[in-house]
């Protein structure tokens, strides 16, 4: 007797991918041994999915543009200065703010892996973690910048900072011209993620 049941292809729950099962296995073991607390994992996910992101770094840059005393503190000790705004680094990490000037443009890379100022910018974009960027940012930064659409004046040097597990860099871009009347909130909207990595420039005033 012919029969067809529409469910034939999926009589059981769909099997997750190989890496998904491997992660699940590790999590099961570590939670069972009490090494990891599932609620701590949830809090971490919530933080990185919903709370931290480039808007935090942008607020820091805008404050530096509008408050010279804060700017001085930021350049002297960025870890302490961003803590004033309620942004705390992960344990044992220092944030260093590097200011762009007409003489020097700063750009950040991690040649070891993907070190990045998470508390200020969130999870790094894919290109930051790619071999192409990691290898070329140091070797040919101007060419890489050109691919991002950034052409610097000839007289402006490029300085590339290599992040580590201990030191994370935040580029403080130059405040765009024509923004004199803007307050910190309006200015923060001009500060892009890439401008704080050094592969972009802040947007023009709208």
């Amino acid at each position, binding site marked *: 007797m012919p029969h067809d049941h529409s469910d034939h292809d999926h009589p059981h729950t769909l099997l997750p991918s190989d*890496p998904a*099962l491997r992660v699940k296995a590790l999590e099961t073991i570590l939670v069972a041994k009490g*090494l990891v607390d599932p609620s701590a994992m949830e809090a971490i996910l919530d933080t990185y999915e919903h709370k931290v992101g480039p808007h935090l770094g942008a607020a820091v840059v805008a404050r530096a543009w509008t408050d010279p005393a804060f700017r001085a503190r930021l350049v002297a000790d960025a870890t302490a200065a961003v803590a004033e705004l309620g942004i705390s680094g992960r344990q044992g990490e220092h944030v260093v703010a590097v200011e762009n000037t007409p003489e020097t443009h700063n750009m950040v890379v991690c040649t070891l892996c993907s070190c990045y100022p998470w508390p200020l910018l969130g999870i790094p974009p894919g290109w930051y973690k790619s071999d192409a960027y990691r290898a070329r940012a140091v070797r040919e930064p101007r060419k890489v910048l050109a691919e991002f659409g950034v052409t610097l004046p000839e007289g402006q040097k490029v300085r590339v900072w290599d992040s*580590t*597990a201990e030191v994370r860099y935040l580029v403080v871009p130059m405040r765009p011209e024509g923004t004199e009347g803007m307050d910190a909130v309006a200015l923060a909207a001009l500060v892009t993620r890439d401008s704080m990595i050094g592969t972009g420039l802040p947007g023009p005033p709208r």
Partner: protein
Amino acid sequence: MTAPAPSRFDEPWQAQLFALTVALNEAGHFGWPDWTQAFGATLKRRGTERPQDGNADYYAAWLETLEGFLDATGHAPKAEAARTKAAWEAAYLVTPHGQPVRLKG
């Protein structure tokens, strides 16, 4: 802004892997510099085979590093991880579609 923000991760397991690693570090089971050294070594080795794209490649390298790391520390030996993975696989295969999947035992 009313639209939900897209996830920072391409796949849910990448987010779980990230959270698991950070949670282990924050609970003091390993130092972040040790992690970055091990992860950097994996990326370097895989990068000599072919350039790493920074997305799928990146999290595959991350997972391989964490598995090796936890095997070395004894927190999750490779054989135990393989057994647990097989148990999950079996649980998925016997659970009727639509019902929650649970490990036996």
